[in-house]
């Protein structure tokens, strides 16, 4: 029983961190209706940033957020202006190939600058967190808490601020949003940059748990895609639930079956959801057309 509790809770914690890494992807998809195939490389860039701040400047990786998050916001804004925005009014494949090209470019640039070596940072906390008889890496619990706070703040902002309402309006009817005086291209820019900043945040949370290398994004972006589709494309709370499902399945199957099969089992879960709830767990019918509905 203790083992099961341990596994489920670790699954929830790691799953929430996966969700944090996926929220930017789902947000950008919901608003711009594009998939950023360089999402994993944005994560990689953020992780190198967090690594550099920690190793070179001696900062705590959680403090590195103060620099990495705004830097990723600017980077996202730049990518939007130079690559995404010019491709938006062209056929949909143009954006697909443009972001894929960016992904390959970033991987190779990282390989050139940083080599293929794995970099990591020393543990942030000296001891584990105990919940009753259960032990958890403190970094995992901190990541979970940050994710929950971040999701709540984001949901609140989308619901209650003028900018949040404008984003939701753009999702529901882009043209009507323009007719109400919303500068939609600006909303796109802010969303893309904001989504990138969220990946930066996820990178700082993940750096104490994982190593960074040029193709680290590939490992995680697959999980992110599964989570986004699982939770319902464009849904933020869906991403959180999707992430937690993936985390639990991965955690249980790694222990009870074999670590190598972890990925296989969450793809089985993914297929089951696709068969029985094709719009995702929290997705509405036609979520791909409507986007963030919650």
């Amino acid at each position, binding site marked *: 029983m203790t083992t099961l509790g341990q596994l489920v809770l670790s699954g929830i914690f790691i799953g929430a961190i996966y969700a944090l890494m996926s929220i930017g992807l789902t947000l950008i998809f919901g608003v711009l209706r594009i998939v950023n195939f360089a999402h994993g490389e944005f994560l990689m860039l953020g992780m190198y940033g967090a690594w550099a701040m920690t190793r070179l400047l001696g900062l705590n990786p959680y403090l590195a957020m103060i620099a990495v998050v705004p830097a990723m916001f600017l980077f996202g804004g730049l990518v939007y202006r130079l690559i995404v925005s010019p491709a938006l009014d062209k056929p949909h494949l143009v954006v697909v190939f443009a972001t894929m090209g960016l992904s390959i470019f970033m991987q190779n640039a990282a390989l050139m600058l940083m080599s293929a070596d794995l970099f990591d940072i020393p543990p942030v906390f000296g001891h584990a967190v105990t919940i009753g008889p259960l032990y958890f890496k403190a970094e995992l619990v901190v990541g979970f808490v940050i994710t929950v706070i971040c999701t709540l703040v984001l949901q609140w902002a989308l619901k209650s601020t003028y900018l949040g309402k404008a984003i939701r309006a753009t999702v529901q009817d882009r043209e009507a949003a*323009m*007719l109400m*005086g919303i*500068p939609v*291209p600006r909303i796109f820019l802010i969303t893309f940059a904001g989504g990138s900043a969220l990946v930066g945040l996820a990178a700082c949370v993940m750096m104490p748990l994982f190593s960074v290398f040029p193709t680290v994004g590939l490992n995680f972006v697959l999980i992110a895609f599964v989570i986004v589709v699982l939770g319902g494309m464009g849904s933020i709370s869906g991403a959180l639930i999707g992430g937690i499902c993936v985390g639990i399945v991965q955690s249980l199957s790694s222990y009870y079956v074999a670590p190598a099969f972890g990925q296989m089992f969450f793809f089985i879960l993914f297929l089951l959801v696709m068969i029985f709830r094709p719009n995702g767990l929290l997705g509405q019918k036609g979520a791909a057309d409507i986007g963030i509905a919650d």
Partner: protein
Amino acid sequence: MLEVENLDAFYGQIHVLHGVSLSIKAGDIVGLVGANAAGKSTLMYSLAGLRTTCAGKIRLKNEAIEDMPTHERVRRGLVLVPERRRLFPFMTVLENLQIGAYSDGARALAHQTMREVFELLPTLSERRTQLAGSLSGGEQQMVAIGRALMAKPQVLLLDEPTEGLAPIYVKLLFELITSLRALGITVLIVEQNIHHVLQTADRAYVLENGRIVLEGSGRALLNDERLKVAYLGL
């Protein structure tokens, strides 16, 4: 208030409007009628700065706006209530109205405008927490007009506002349009309901195959034989 001079508009490669000129005086209610596919909605979208590519001049209060993006035109007081209302279906009535006041000038006055809109359209106040998508067609049209009023329009463009509405709402809507005159809002309305619109409008234009073929006071056009020819093809 709104001057259109020699406007040509294209939908992709299709040349829809040919040298359309209009002149709309402040405070007037102006009707735009014509058969299906005459280019009425194209003209409305061109004025709003959406969908079409245009050549020609559009001036709002003597300022050239033809090169401005849609949101800049809204900020200057030119607001379109599009065909089929286009509310934000997963937002409440209240949120739809708040979004209407997105432009900075309108936002500063949003609280007051909201009170005025609720006075003008009391049913909206009762429905404020309901999702817009759950309302009846007539109620949705009222929200759409309320939302546009939140933007503090000087010129309100209404594209087929009575389409698909119950007769009681058609009547209500024309009463509402008449009361907008008292607020000093200039109205350009595209309407299939030709009898209603020509009785309400101070002036009207008849559009045929992308060209203005007739213009005059609403009542005069109502009795004009040529209108029957242009509109009904008799």
